[in-house]
């Protein structure tokens, strides 16, 4: 029983269905795990030593003595003590709001510490977003209050592609700005070529890549790689794409297909939320999370290195300036 719980430390991903709040998913997983843990066989109850008085036939008739007996402690009976585990530490990674669905990372036990590391690693996430042209609602989703209806016959795939390219371009610029990395170093340049640059502190939502998966007016589907986003921000992007195309659009589905190292294949469906499959998922994800965090550390070193180098270069240029002007320029002017 305790051994079963000992295996439950780490991260795993579940598939959150749409229309359910993330807290409900987390609580359902916790209850499921608890009930399974408590249904396992209990350790045998500890024995207590009692001295029970008993009569023994002695030399001179009956004699009262104490006999040592071992009795199980009734206070540890399952009906008296209740279930052994009453709560589990289950923490959630990046949240998904009620309407969205997809990969949702949860941490159990000591895995909750890893959740903090993953958060500080500022990993990117991938979403597929479905949109519908011709409508506008107050909350950018298809269930909201309808505000206006528009035509969408003039929209072509090419126009959509152009808008997407503009979005990606402007976001890329912002990304380089927030990344605060000196592109003049060799390492940073190599990273930038591979497209691996990302900011290491808080920033507004940034889209690192966006492309169209499917375009059948009025429906369209986008794939968005982004970081520091909320699902509502992605809906707003769809709304803005609609406006840019001289029409309107609502978002019908936001589905996360990747969260950091966790992909759709790792995510557990509702029927798979069992002790065994969760333990397997934790084991499988352990290596992935570790490599991801190690890569982040390496990136952070390059990042810090480039910062140091830039500072060095800056002080160098300042020194050069001063040298060219003389040791004490203000004396010369006087």
């Amino acid at each position: 029983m305790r051994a079963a719980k000992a295996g439950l430390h780490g991260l795993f991903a579940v598939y959150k269905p749409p229309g359910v709040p993330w807290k409900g998913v987390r609580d359902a997983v916790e209850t499921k795990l608890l009930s399974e843990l408590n249904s396992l066989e209990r350790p045998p109850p500890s024995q207590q030593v009692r001295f029970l008085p008993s009569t023994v036939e002695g030399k001179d008739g009956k004699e009262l003595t104490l006999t040592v007996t071992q009795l199980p402690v009734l206070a540890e009976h399952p009906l008296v003590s209740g279930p052994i585990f009453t709560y589990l530490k289950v923490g959630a990674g990046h949240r998904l709001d009620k309407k969205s669905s997809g990969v949702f990372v949860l941490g159990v036990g000591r895995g909750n510490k890893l959740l903090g590391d993953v958060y500080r690693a500022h990993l990117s996430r991938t979403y597929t977003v479905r949109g519908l042209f011709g409508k506008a609602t107050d909350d950018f989703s298809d269930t909201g209050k309808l505000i206006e209806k528009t035509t969408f016959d003039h929209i072509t795939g090419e126009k959509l592609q152009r808008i997407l390219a503009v979005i990606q371009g402007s976001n890329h610029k912002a990304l380089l700005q927030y990344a605060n990395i000196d592109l003049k170093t060799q390492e940073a340049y190599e990273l930038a070529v591979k497209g691996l640059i990302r900011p290491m502190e808080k920033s507004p939502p940034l889209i690192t890549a966006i492309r169209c998966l499917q375009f059948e007016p009025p429906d369209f589907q986008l794939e968005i790689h982004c970081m520091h986003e909320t699902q509502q921000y992605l809906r707003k992007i769809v709304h803005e794409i609609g406006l840019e195309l001289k029409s309107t659009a609502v978002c019908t589905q936001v589905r996360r297909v990747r969260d950091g190292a966790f992909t759709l294949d790792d995510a557990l469906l509702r029927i798979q939320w069992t002790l065994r499959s969760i333990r397997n998922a934790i084991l499988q994800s352990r290596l992935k999370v570790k490599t991801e965090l190690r890569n982040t550390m390496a990136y952070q070193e390059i990042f810090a290195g480039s910062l140091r180098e830039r500072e060095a270069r800056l002080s160098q240029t300042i020194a050069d300036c001063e040298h060219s002007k003389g040791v004490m320029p203000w004396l010369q002017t006087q």
Partner: protein
Amino acid sequence: MALLTRRVTRCCCLLKKHYIVNSIELRKQTIRTWTLSLVRPSLPLLWPYRYFRQPVFKNSRTLFFDNIQFCSSSASLNSSPENNSLSLVNQQIEPRSNSDSKALDEGWDEALPSSALEEISEDEAVQIVAEPPLPFESFTLQDYVDRSETLQKLVLLGVDLSKVEKRPGAAQFLLKLDFEKDIQKILLFLKDVGVEDNQLGAFLTKNPYILREVVEDLETRVAYLTSKKFSKEAIARMVSRAPYLLLFSVERLDNRLGFFQKELGLNVKKTKDLVTRLPRLLTNSLEPIKENLKVYELELGFSQNEIRHIVYRIPKNLGVNKRKLTQTFDYLHNIMGIPHSTIVHFPQVFNSNMLRIKERHLFLNFLGRAQYDPKQPSYISLDKLVSVSDDVFCAEVAKTSIQDFQKFLKTL
């Protein structure tokens, strides 16, 4: 009580210090003040403790009372044997004690041996139970279960004490009960009514308060049910399924039976059948049921006859959460396009998981098999949609593999 113990220990320390440092006069004074402070505010608290732990007290070998004796005798080392121990205390407080504490003092005199140093026989020594004292108060019954015969028997009966102790006031009165005197008669009565042996534990877990009832009252209630022509099996089933049924007075039971008969418009036989199948209806609150009936009628637009059918087929539908009810109906009627007449034939849909209906409908829709009209070919009944397991659903209804279904679920 914890406060008392703390005070006693503190006093003891104080006393020792004084013993070492001060003169005899001063010492006597301290003892007087201490004993008074101990005796006066805390005596009423001591009463129940003494009452419960008579044997321990009698032998007075527990740490607690040894302390007192030590303190008192140390103060009057060379005085006569009658004068040591708590007799000293008694003499001092005699003038100012009221009748209550007088009675207590007498009790103490009887209970305590005359001296702590008195020799006792072997047999007596063997009988001394040197167990740590029971806690004065506790949050759980766990502390008492190893010593209380009643609780032990209840556990063997299968009563879940961890659940019972969470009920208001239940743990307190269970502790005071005596198995032979109070519990046995109720258990025998329940067995007579027809509750199975293995259900008694679960019954008492759900309703420990029945142990407070008088057997005659319970008998009149059972007699009422018999007079209403419930068969013996039906009564046994109702009582074991709805443990609180027997706590309801005859008038209340009558009212409730009348309510179901009137509101649902069922005949006597069907009403009896309904409450026998789900006796919980009788004991649970009637407000949600009234509300649900209105929801079925006004919000969902079922006719009286249809409501009667829905409720009679699946009585649980009366207790379904109102929001869940409207959500499920909304999905079935407005999205899946199923008319009222079809829903009436499958009332179990209201009692099933909403997410499951949604997932399966979307999957069937994706496959192009979502055809719920019984007049057309490849008809899929609602019953098959909601009540079979995923494996059977995939194999028989959707005619695909379960892996495909799972893959589909990950695209939602």
